[in-house]
């Protein structure tokens, strides 16, 4: 049986796990990340509005509230280092009646107390809100504008962290599922059994029966964090999967709103900041989402829920062109039974650190959580010696300039495959796709999330086979073994004679 030693094993490569891995790469440690999916950021991370909250919301005394504003600041600093594109849009929380204005005032007060700048309640009476958001409905009487809010692409952030952590010697075991985990007192070490989730395990570095021996474990397993915690006897929390369903609209609808517009949540449920109509960094419009208790394996969309989104958000934003929908999708939030983040050493074993229940504003807090986790590891006895070779910067691979094509001459001079357009909708060149594969994409979705190839209005009708051929060539596996998203998501069944 093959065993790999590590100082720290991080379970889960969502935005939280990746941020933790990159944070740990600042120290002289061997860090290993285990992820059951074939790529990073494929759980809760990828189904997310991408809003970096300013930090006025949340219950008093909660981690969510106390971390969010600083989390925003830290995210911005790191996004700069990691070349994660940010759009400084601000955000609006919109209300429909006078009693709800009180909620805005409370939030404003709470935000100011936490040091937020650029917070303002804007009335729709004198048309000020309409000026800010031309498509805002007459039903909206006021909105809380938060100037420090911004938008990013959550999966791009996870990919940036993954690339940078890898560069700083973190080892990633993708398409590898934890099947059991136990602490051996005699050896003072955790033994983690992992199994490949892909038959092409050679490209992911996992093999059947592999064991990871780690001194410390960080549990960032998203909706499965409670199940991982149970493996070491930590029964202190439970994670519930709560589904959210979204529409994604074509970039032709990209001017609909200028910033994330949130609909105030139903005061009876108080579950989340409610539904949102938001621009994305890719110039699409994302609209969602619902809040439905469900099973951990239920990623299905339903007409009923999507109709609800349509009605509720149609009351806030006028003229939403739902006929420009490119795709609909659903994701699961990891909601803890405390309603708050669960961060810190577990009682059963202090060398096992939880980063669980990370839901909104979890994306905003990814970096601040990663710093808390490294502090917790230190407290639990891990020696943190500075890694003098740490490279904080990561650069995005240059994309074709879709607006001013002249700017691409230099790219082409460097690499002629910039001239070969593989995805016609999003104008993605072969150079970008090859680079994505060289940097870790192993699937069609992996290429899509890195380059946007297949994300446009034809949804891969044109580029799917072209991308499959490039994946096959670069990974050295036959075309029929190429998957959409790992596991058995093959595009082909059997080769013909």
């Amino acid at each position, binding site marked *: 049986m093959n065993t790999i030693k590590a100082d720290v094993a991080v379970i889960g490569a969502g935005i939280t796990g990746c941020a933790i891995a990159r944070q740990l790469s600042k120290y002289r440690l061997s860090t290993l990340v285990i992820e059951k999916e074939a790529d990073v950021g494929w759980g809760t991370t990828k189904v997310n509005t991408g809003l970096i909250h300013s930090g006025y919301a949340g219950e008093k005394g909660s981690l969510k509230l106390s971390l969010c504003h600083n989390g925003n600041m830290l995210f911005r600093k790191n996004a700069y280092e990691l070349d994660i594109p940010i759009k400084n849009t601000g955000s609006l929380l919109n209300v429909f009646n006078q009693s709800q204005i009180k909620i805005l005032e409370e939030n404003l007060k709470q935000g100011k107390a936490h040091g937020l700048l650029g917070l303002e309640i804007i009335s729709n009476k004198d048309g000020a809100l309409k000026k800010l958001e031309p498509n805002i409905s007459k039903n909206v009487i006021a909105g809380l504008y938060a100037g420090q809010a911004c938008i990013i692409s959550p999966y791009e952030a996870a990919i940036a962290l993954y690339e940078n952590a890898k560069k700083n010697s973190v080892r990633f075991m993708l398409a590898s599922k934890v099947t059991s985990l136990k602490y051996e007192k005699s050896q003072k070490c955790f033994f983690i059994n992992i199994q490949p989730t892909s038959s092409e395990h050679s490209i992911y570095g996992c093999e059947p029966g592999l064991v990871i021996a780690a001194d410390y474990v960080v549990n960032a397993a998203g909706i499965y964090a409670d199940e991982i915690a149970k493996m070491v006897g930590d029964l202190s929390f439970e994670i519930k999967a709560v589904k959210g369903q979204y529409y994604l609209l074509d970039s032709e609808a990209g001017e609909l709103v200028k910033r994330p517009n949130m609909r105030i949540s139903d005061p009876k449920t108080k579950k989340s900041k409610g539904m949102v109509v938001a621009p994305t960094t890719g110039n699409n419009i994302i609209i969602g989402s619902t809040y439905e208790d469900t099973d951990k394996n239920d*990623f*299905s969309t339903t*007409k009923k829920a999507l109709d609800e989104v349509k009605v509720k958000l149609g009351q806030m934003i006028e003229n939403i062109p739902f006929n420009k929908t490119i795709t609909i999708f659903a994701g699961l939030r990891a909601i803890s039974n405390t309603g708050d983040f669960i961060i810190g050493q577990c009682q059963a074993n202090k060398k096992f650190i939880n980063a669980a229940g990370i839901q909104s504003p979890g994306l905003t807090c990814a970096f601040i959580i990663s710093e808390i986790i490294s502090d917790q590891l230190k407290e639990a006895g891990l020696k943190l010696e500075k890694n003098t070779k740490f490279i904080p910067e990561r650069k995005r691979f240059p994309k074709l300039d879709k607006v001013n*094509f002249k700017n691409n001459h230099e790219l082409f*001079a460097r690499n002629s495959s910039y*001239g070969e357009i593989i995805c016609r909708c999003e104008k993605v060149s072969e150079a970008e796709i090859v680079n994505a594969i060289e940097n870790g994409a192993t699937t069609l979705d992996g290429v899509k999330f890195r380059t946007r190839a297949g994300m446009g209005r034809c949804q891969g009708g044109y580029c799917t086979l072209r991308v499959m051929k490039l994946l096959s060539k670069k990974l050295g596996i036959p075309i029929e073994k190429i998957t959409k998203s790992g596991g*058995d998501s093959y*595009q082909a*069944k059997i080769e013909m004679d």
Partner: protein
Amino acid sequence: MVKLIKQAENKIKHSSDSEYDLVVIGGGPGGMAAAVKAAELGVERVLLIERDSFLGGILPQCIHSGFGIKIFNSELTGPEYCQLFVEKVRNISIEVMLDTMALTLDLKGDKKSIIVSSRNFGIKRITAKAIILSLGCRERTRGQILIPGSRPAGVLTAGLVQKMVNIEGFLPGKNIVILGSGDIGLIMARRLVLEGCKVKGVFELMPFSTGLLRNISQCLEDFEIPLYLSHTVTKIYGDKRIKSVDIAMVDKNLNPIQTKTKNIKCDTLLLSVGLIPENELSKTAEIEIDLKTGGPAVDQYLHTSRNGVFACGNSLFVNDLADNVTEDGYLAAQSAVSFLNGRLRSEKLIRSKKLINIEAGENIAYIVPQKVSGKSDVNFRIRASIPLRNAFIEFSNIGLKKKVRFVNPGELIFAKITKGDFGKFLECNTKTASDSIKVSIKKEVQGQ
């Protein structure tokens, strides 16, 4: 066959000078026909731009027969039909740029220009005196018809599967459900059965098929593949790979009937739910788009709203037959030649008030051309929105009725209106305010 076409094309060289009389964008049946005809009519510098590494568009993947009945008077396969045009392109003075993607049209200056991209030369500007757009169409996707459920692999559009099977040589799965009875879906049903797959049925939302009648008979009936009208997919199951679908009968408002839902196991869901003219390039030049066809609005010369820019093929409207696309390619070329010779006058022809608007009325999904001068005969192309027996096509304001025994959304209707007929309209129009002719398909009332 594809290899042959490729070899033929590699011999066609293009020069470095980038000023042309006519640039044809898109090397499918429409673009090849347009380029060949223009060269035959004496245009000196014709350039044909194709994004793929071979000419023909989707013809090489259409290995079934049924091509060429109009143009060559014999029934050919797609690759055969393609090869005949590739020969024509080779034997006449046309420059061809393969592996070249047209990114934007720039019509702002005096010269029309096209920004193109290729691995061979990077990004460059090509200028032209006239442009023909023959950009083809794309398939509607799952997202556009909003099928609920999970998002596994194995949900594919029919054209993509056609390319997988016929060009790349692999199958998408073994147990197939087909949603939509468009022509590619019908053809792929037969194709997949021939390759040993089980096609569990073709399910069509409408109470009629949108495919050609000959395809229903030759692709489904001859192979005993069931066609279920007024049915749709209401849910997709499967985590990584599709496992099954829910199929429901729909009521007359097209809403699924809950009690008439059943689950069907499958490993592939093929979508043949409509085609949309490719118009992104047209939009970059702010060419007026007809919302009914999804392609540029044109006059009887296939002239778009931009002077000197013509459109043909499936980027104009989605055709049923390649032969019709070829004919439109010829027409676009003839018009472009007239334009280059200064005979096709009038700036911004289509926006001119002097033109007669053609309106799609009752039971008509779309009609092309959308505007006519009334000074020449026009062969209208009409797409019915429902099937009707013993009907007539009515042209308002000219009091013209044309009897049609049977109309079907799957088959394009051609209706020729003469200059004389328009004359009647123009005469009376001086007195009335109306500047349009409304075209409708109506059912013949018994006893008439």
